[in-house]
């Protein structure tokens, strides 16, 4: 094997790789499914327009880099609790869910699946993540009185049958 590589010039295997890629790409295009547009010679995925004027970055950048942004954000969210909207998957779904079905997967007309099936790239996100926006889930809520998790200036109530320890001693720093 090593000898074979050594015998072969560098451009030789590069061309081979290019050919292999072209073959794979060509095969993907050769079998168009529903949801592909045939405007020119080459079928293109039909991408439904999202809500709002523009995406968080320009379209070309997002096409190439959305997976990197999402992977970076997911680690920030899971490990550090950073829940900014800009690159969150829920943020994507919020805008790009289909007007008809309310989802980003399900048919080749839906935003995520449309491109991923066109490019033959497996889409694993939605095995765990919801493919519907959470707009119906209320993000605004207030803590109930008396169960505030942070600070409470109100005197604490003594448990009904707990030990009688009298007044709660105030802790000093």
């Amino acid at each position, binding site marked *: 094997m090593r000898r074979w590589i050594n015998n072969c010039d560098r451009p030789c295997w590069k061309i081979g790789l290019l050919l292999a890629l072209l073959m794979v790409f060509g095969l993907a295009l050769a079998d168009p499914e529903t949801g592909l547009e045939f405007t020119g010679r080459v079928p293109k995925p039909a991408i439904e327009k999202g809500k709002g004027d523009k995406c968080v970055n320009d379209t070309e950048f997002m096409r190439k880099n959305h997976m990197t942004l999402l992977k970076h954000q*997911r*680690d*920030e969210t*899971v*490990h*550090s*609790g*950073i*829940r*900014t*909207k800009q690159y969150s998957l*829920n943020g994507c*779904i919020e805008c790009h869910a289909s007007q008809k079905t309310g989802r980003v997967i399900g048919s080749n007309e839906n935003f995520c699946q449309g491109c991923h099936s066109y490019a033959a790239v497996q889409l694993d996100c939605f*095995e*765990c*993540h*919801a493919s*519907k*926006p*959470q707009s119906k*889930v209320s*993000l605004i*809520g207030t*803590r*109930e009185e*008396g*169960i*505030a*998790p*942070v*600070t*409470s*200036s109100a005197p*604490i*109530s003594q*448990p*009904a*049958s*707990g*030990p009688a*320890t009298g007044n*709660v*001693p105030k*802790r000093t*720093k």
Partner: protein
Amino acid sequence: MSADRQSADGTVNRRGFLGISAVALAGVVLAPGVRLIELAAGRSPGEPVTNQVRWGMLIDANQCDSGCTDCVTACNTENGLSGGTLETDSQWIRKIEVKDLRGGKARSLPMMCQHCAEPPCVDVCPTGASFKRADGIVLVDKHICIGCRYCIMACPYGARSFVHEALTDQKPEVPRGKGCVEACTLCVQRVDRDLSPACVEACAAAGHKAIIFGDLNNPDSEIAKRVAAFASRQVREELGLNTGVRYQGI
């Protein structure tokens, strides 16, 4: 004043240096103290969690009603669990009955991930998926979890579940999927929005207020005051895991 701190050639002498150091040290110590209260009062969504906060729960078994399962229902609703109680169903919180065999006194209490400071599940995880967040919440990074279930075996509380079958209709904020281990997250999605976990709210709504949630590190929080005032216990405290969930009245 400055003359005795600085010698004639302008260098700081020993006494002056100590004085300045003391002032500098006081500043360092004081500043995090002030910051701690600011952070606990509310973190912006872009700020990472810090270890100045330690989230915990105090469960008062005296207040917990043996027939009530509102906390379990609220957990299932919030996190999109099926509510099934088979061995293969995910249960993030269970109601258990304990009885003092000699005295005969029975107690009912909710049992869930105890959010240990030294979590055995994290120790045994071969991929680093099981981890403790800086603010004390023990979580599974399901992007890394390979489903080996060592953590399930390591957990002394039987708190973790495994997802055996493909799921649909997950909650947008609570992704769950086949092949991953999961457990109580202290409703991390709610805590990050400055809300209490679903079980805490449900318990208060039912009028029991048996579970209180808060920052154990903040001496002004209700939970820290209670822990300081009343005897509370950690389940299996002999393991020295320093659990974030504490029990009163057991």
